[in-house]
């Protein structure tokens, strides 16, 4: 690892003292190395040092908790005293905004930056995991505990009803396509979190408006790590982690189950046939399907400078094993970045290339609900030959109870679920862009920037069901399935940027053009295992799709600063989307922001304790056109029917032609945001933070809503209807409580609250706001829903009957509050339902702490969510006695939670199932030890031990109170993970 620099240089002895900028005290233990060489020393107890170096060398001063300093070695200045600045929370770093960058102190919008130091730690395989709980107003909910599973990211609640509420994600200047390719659980997993330098979240419209068309739900800008100015460095990061299930559902064991069935038959009128179906075993099905999973992660990066070109190359390999048996993800990532410059730095080029190869084994998640429900009195295996020995429920009427026909609607053996389904995929993805930034020579301050990029993903997979599987008989022609898909996303951006200062006036103007193209295609095949006489597989079928869309934009932005004190930003973007017809295609999105650095004013000149005080006001309009998979919603289109949906005339089955619903007048959904913010810092920024309040209103919602019967080719239409409001407050606080030489402690906290309300759902000009429409489908029955969208309520509000309780506090089955007072069958009248809260928390508080003592560090981060309601669908669907025995002849286990209600029949709309699922989750606790110069001069690093998902405090009765969407079904549980990690620099 030795890059020889100049030869026969003049050697000098450099001495000096290193002190702390905050208190002037000496700093011992600072590492001083000659950049690019293994040569170095450290400061002694009084902060002094001495080192021999060549003239022209660069000395690099580094110590944990401080910003690294560099000094040139010259012959005439051999005494080099250095004042080290403690690393602070990014006071004055440059933040990347759309099409350019800006000093954070000059930002006029609501912008949060999280750098590598502040990222969450632990076995994190996705970028969003790095910032969970770290930024006020940003809610990240991991979908499930499955390896590589995706997350829902919501910035300041959702601004849309039916259209996408996902933020725009921009990776190194490249806005990526949020729709993942087939076989990829999570589109963001294309990027290795170890390659990420920082993540910037743009929240208000004045910040996001430059991304106009796709910025209504905020923007997350990911910047990856780059090369450095010195020689070649090597970093290795690796960890091994162990995941374990935290909690099982409390269900009856074999003996309890036999007693329960006996009691139900004897005393509660259960069909006595049930007794004859009981087995003699005691099987803990949940215990059988899960495992302790060991995962590993290795990353090596090479970075530095080669032939004057800063570069970085990294390779990562992750094997993540899930706690559900068989489930795993294996991922290899590659990232290369180089920043050559030409013509005396007039032309700077950035090249980014990232590649990824993923192999997923999804296992069979149906095993999770099967294990929850399967009769514990049955053995895993009996002596059948038809089902590979796995115990299977056989139809009552079959004489052969081992190998007869299965009960199709019965629960299927959880272990057979795992053994007999093979669901795997392979995905390759590459994203690359090249950016030219040219300082136009004849006009100082003018730059031209060209950015061209492409993202390509290819996925393929199979999903096969073994013919021995008891459920394989239901749709045999889908037992062998394969699929593949392709995504392409091409980008071309060009802009001019001109910066000039005239006296106290500073102008920074940008104008540009953007073009982006999205292409998606895919196909799937299915067949049975059986071959017909004609040599064709029986039931063979195939499907394919292909679509594309374009976005074309013109944008401009002016930043104006007066006396570096009054800052103004004005933005205008004109967006064209191919998803709308000619007359409605273009949307104009203006934004304006003003900021005032109050602490720069003379009247605060003497307020020494005040380090920063800035007021911000922003207004802006953003657009929305991402309405999911309908890329031609304004064009009348006919759709062919696939096999299985043919219709017979005579002796021929015809593929039919169906007109799809369309709205020729569909146009942009528009969100207007007002944001008022205050950034502050006290005591040399030891206390630092910000407060933002905002009001957001979305009109012309692109909603999929019921329409007047007979007017279009469906009962619902994607059209511009209704409006929605969000308002909220966000507070971010960071406090460096202790900032001593050997002991540092910083605490961070953030708070956010958001209120959402639907203000219109109709284009009708009537007083009657309308009843709205149902949503929030549950398991149990078919087509049942527990939420409703209605004017005056928040989106996704639960809509249930108010349970009536007896004097002992037990709910009375089927008895609800008669809200309408109409009497009769209360449960037969939806008007008796109440609106009862939403899955969104009222308040969200993130806390984190970093403690450093000499070489040791200890940190944790957690989240408090208050007022998030969860509908326990596991209980409402299963914790009822009727589920114990189905007349077709099979038994099912039920949760012991049935004793909380003693309900016999399903009462899906009882408020008893809606719970306040407020929680505190300790996301991670990490203990680390850093070392310098281990074995060799150059070897430094850090070892860590951490626990992820350490604990959860909640009153919620289910397994996990954090439920994306608020309806708790059997999801793949999130494991608790213990990790040992090492990070080494050479």
């Amino acid at each position, binding site marked *: 690892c030795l890059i020889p620099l100049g030869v026969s240089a003049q050697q000098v002895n450099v001495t000096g003292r290193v002190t702390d900028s905050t208190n002037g005290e000496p700093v011992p233990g600072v590492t001083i190395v000659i950049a690019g060489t293994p040569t170095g020393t450290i400061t002694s107890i009084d902060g002094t040092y001495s080192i021999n170096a060549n003239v022209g060398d660069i000395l690099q001063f580094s110590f944990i908790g401080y910003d690294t300093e560099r000094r040139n070695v010259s012959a005439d200045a051999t005494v080099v005293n250095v004042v080290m600045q403690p690393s602070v929370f990014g006071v004055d770093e440059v933040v990347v905004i759309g099409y350019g960058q800006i000093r954070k102190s000059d930002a006029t919008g609501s912008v949060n930056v999280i750098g590598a130091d502040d990222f969450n730690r632990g076995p994190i395989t996705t970028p969003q995991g790095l910032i969970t709980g770290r930024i006020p107003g940003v809610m990240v909910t991991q979908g499930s505990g499955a390896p590589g599973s995706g997350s829902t990211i919501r910035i300041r609640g959702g601004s849309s009803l039916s259209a996408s509420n996902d933020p725009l994600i921009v990776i190194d200047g490249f806005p990526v396509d949020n729709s993942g390719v087939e076989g990829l659980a999570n589109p963001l997993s294309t990027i290795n979190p170890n390659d990420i330098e920082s993540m910037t979240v743009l929240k208000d419209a004045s910040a996001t408006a430059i991304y106009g068309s796709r910025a209504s739900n905020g923007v997350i800008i990911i910047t990856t790590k780059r090369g450095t100015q010195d020689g070649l460095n090597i970093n290795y990061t690796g960890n091994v982690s162990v995941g374990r299930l935290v909690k099982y559902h409390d269900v009856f064991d074999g003996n309890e189950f036999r007693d329960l069935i006996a009691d139900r038959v004897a005393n509660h009128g259960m069909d006595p046939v049930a007794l004859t179906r009981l087995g003699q075993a005691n099987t803990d099905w949940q215990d059988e399907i899960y495992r302790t999973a060991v995962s590993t992660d290795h990353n090596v990066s090479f970075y530095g400078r080669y032939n004057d070109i800063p570069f970085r190359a990294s390779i990562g390999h992750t094997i993540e094993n899930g706690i559900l048996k068989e489930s795993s993800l294996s991922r290899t990532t590659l990232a290369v970045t180089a920043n050559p410059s030409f013509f005396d730095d007039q032309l700077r080029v950035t090249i980014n290339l990232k590649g990824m190869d993923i192999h997923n084994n999804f296992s069979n998640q149906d095993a999770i609900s099967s294990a929850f429900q399967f009769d514990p009195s049955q053995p895993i295996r009996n002596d059948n030959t038809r089902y590979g020995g796995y115990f299977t429920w056989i139809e009552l009427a079959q004489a052969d109870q081992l190998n007869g026909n299965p009960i199709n609607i019965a629960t299927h053996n959880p272990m057979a679920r795992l053994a007999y389904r093979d669901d795997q995929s392979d995905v390759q993805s590459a994203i690359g862009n090249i950016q030219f930034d040219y300082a136009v020579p004849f006009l100082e301050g003018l730059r031209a920037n060209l950015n061209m990029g492409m993202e390509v993903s290819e996925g393929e997979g199979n999903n096969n069901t073994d013919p021995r599987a008891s459920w394989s008989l239901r749709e045999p022609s889908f037992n062998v399935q394969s699929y593949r898909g392709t995504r392409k996303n091409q980008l071309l951006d060009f802009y001019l940027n001109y910066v000039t200062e005239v006296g106290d006036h500073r102008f920074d103007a940008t104008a540009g053009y953007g073009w982006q193209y999205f292409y998606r295609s895919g196909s799937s095949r299915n067949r049975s295992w059986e071959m017909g006489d004609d040599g064709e597989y029986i039931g063979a079928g195939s499907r394919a799709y292909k679509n594309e869309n374009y976005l074309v934009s013109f944008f401009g932005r002016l930043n104006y600063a007066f006396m570096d004190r009054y800052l103004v930003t004005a933005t205008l973007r004109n967006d064209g989307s191919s998803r709308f017809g000619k007359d409605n295609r273009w949307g104009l999105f203006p934004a304006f922001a003003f900021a005032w650095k109050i602490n720069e004013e003379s009247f605060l000149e003497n307020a020494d304790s005040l380090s920063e005080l800035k007021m911000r006001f922003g207004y802006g309009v953003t657009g929305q056109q991402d309405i999911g998979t309908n890329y031609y919603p304004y064009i009348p289109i006919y759709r062919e029917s696939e096999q299985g949906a043919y219709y017979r005339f005579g002796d021929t089955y015809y593929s*039919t032609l169906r*007109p799809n619903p369309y709205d020729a007048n569909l146009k942009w959904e528009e969100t207007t945001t007002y944001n008022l913010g205050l950034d502050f810092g006290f005591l040399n920024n030891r206390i630092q933070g910000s407060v933002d309040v905002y009001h957001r209103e979305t009109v012309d919602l692109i909603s999929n809503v019921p329409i007047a019967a*007979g007017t279009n080719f469906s009962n619902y239409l994607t059209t511009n209807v209704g409006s929605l409001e969000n308002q909220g407050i966000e507070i971010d606080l960071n406090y460096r409580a202790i900032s001593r030489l050997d002991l540092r402690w910083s605490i961070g906290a953030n708070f956010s609250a958001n209120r959402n309300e639907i203000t219109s759902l109709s284009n009708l000009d009537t007083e009657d706001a309308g009843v709205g429409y149902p949503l929030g489908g549950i398991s149990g029955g078919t*087509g049942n829903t527990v939420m409703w969208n209605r004017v005056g309520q928040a989106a996704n509000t639960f809509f249930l009957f108010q349970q009536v309780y007896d004097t002992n506090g037990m709910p009375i089955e089927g008895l609800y509050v008669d809200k309408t007072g109409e009497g009769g069958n209360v449960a037969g009248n939806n008007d008796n339902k109440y609106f009862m809260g939403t899955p969104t928390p009222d308040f969200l508080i993130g806390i984190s702490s970093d403690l450093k003592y000499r070489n040791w560090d200890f940190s944790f981060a957690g989240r408090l969510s208050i007022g998030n309601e969860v509908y326990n669908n596991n209980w409402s669907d299963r914790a009822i006695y009727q589920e114990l025995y189905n*007349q077709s002849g099979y038994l099912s286990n039920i949760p012991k939670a049935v004793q909380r209600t003693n309900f016999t029949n399903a009462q899906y709309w009882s408020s008893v199932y809606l719970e306040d699922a407020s929680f505190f989750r300790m996301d991670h606790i990490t203990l680390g030890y850093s070392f310098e110069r281990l074995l060799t001069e150059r070897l430094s690093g850090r070892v860590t031990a951490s626990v992820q998902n350490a604990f959860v405090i909640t009153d919620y009765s289910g397994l996990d109170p954090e439920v994306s969407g608020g309806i708790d079904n059997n999801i793949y549980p999130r494991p608790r993970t213990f990790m040992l990690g090492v990070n080494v620099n050479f």
Partner: protein
Amino acid sequence: CINDLDVEPIDPNEATATNVFSDELSYKRALARVYATYAISGQRGGGGGLPDIEGIDEGFGNYLRLYWNLQQLPTDETVMAWDDASIKDFHWHTWSPNDVFIGAMYSRIFYAITLANEFIRTSEDAMGSATGDFLEDLRLYQAESRFLRAFSYWHAIDMFGNVSFVTDEDPIGAFFPQRITRADLFDYVEQELIDLEGDLAAPGTNEYARVDRVAAWMLLSKLYLNAEVYIGEAKYTEALTYLNKVINEGGYSIDPNYIRMFRVDNDQSPEIIFPISFNAQNTQQYGGMTFITNASRGGNMLPNGVGAWGGIRAIKELVEIFGFNESDFTTEDPVFNAREDHRAQFFFDPESWSWEVENVGLFTHGIGVYKFTNLRSDGEPDPMAEGDFASTDFPMFRLGDAYLMYAEAVLRGGQGGSRAIALQLVNELRDRAFGNTNHRITDSELTLDFILDERARELYWEAHRRTDLIRFGKLTGGDYIWTWKGNVPEGRSTGAFRDLYPIPVNDLDTNPNLIQNTGYSN
């Protein structure tokens, strides 16, 4: 690059309205879709996908399944065990205007009407330049789509009364259709059928599963037979006019094998005038016949070629109309092999079933029905068998119904028929039912009460019962009480306003021209 924004679908399975009708076959495929709307729920078979209507599960939102449920569940013939949304409200007569199934039925009816309207426009446009056989085909296609529109409007008259009114004159987009009264809609459908009748294929000359003139005559007969309910005016004479045509000029004949009409090979039956066609491999659907056959099997009932979902069964009132009682069934002979009326296809095992429905949610409380199966009439399995899917077609109109309608129209005073012929037709059906002539009725036994019971025996579970009970004034009110009617085990009187279903709140909400039916709030 701005021109990039002008896109056209690139998916080979999609075409724009301007280029889809590139050949003659495409018109037939679009017509097939108008028919298929009664059978399938979207453009993808199997588990579904690409649904026609939203807000409801695809299987549930199937036209035939909704129609069947809304016609059967509120009556003395059927009870449902499941907990799907408000499905039990139908048996209890407690449905409300925001009922998801009622909303979906209404949506389905108007979806069918809108599809037909579009096809009428499309075929009209094509006729301008078409010649020869193709022009003849187009005329036939258009007449059939007009018939299907009238057929769905008849459902609207029967179930909802005063509804939205759209024809091929109305655009596709977002507007508020006018409300039409039940009486005006009656006039419209009547006139349409009289107009188009001659354009339909001559009796017996069309392809299987497409309608001919006889279907229009049958639908006119049904309109007239129920005219007293629909418009408060008796039109039994007009009913007999068209029933005479159906019976004498239709070319259809009574199937000597009653059970074949409800089996996989019912496409061979000479009696079915208008089938809704299903096929386990080509026309797959979790609604439709897959629902009727699977949901009617459960407990220890015999295999019927599909799965056992355990949902719908008969209550004792239906079985007692056959003159049976609990003791006729034994564990050894749960299908009562000694019965003489072979239309009775019941299953009752006294050991594990309960004659009384104490719990609506328990499938084995009640009497199993195996009238509809996915077996062939010889008991052999469906040669196209595929999982739980059914290949049996649904007999929407059949000649046996026309025979009983004839007798009823005569008994209700219609001119143009005779008691003698009525008696002969009724006895023809009874001869088939019993396999001998020993159970013929006499002229004095031919009464309206007898007709209502005979319709239950002949046509139970064929989605006629609600309409029949209303015509006899017995669906609501206290004249006729059955188990759990009114949501009490012994049954009780219910409000007469429930003879009509409410206008769904979604449509009231989205169309200010509509008015709720009397008796319903909202």
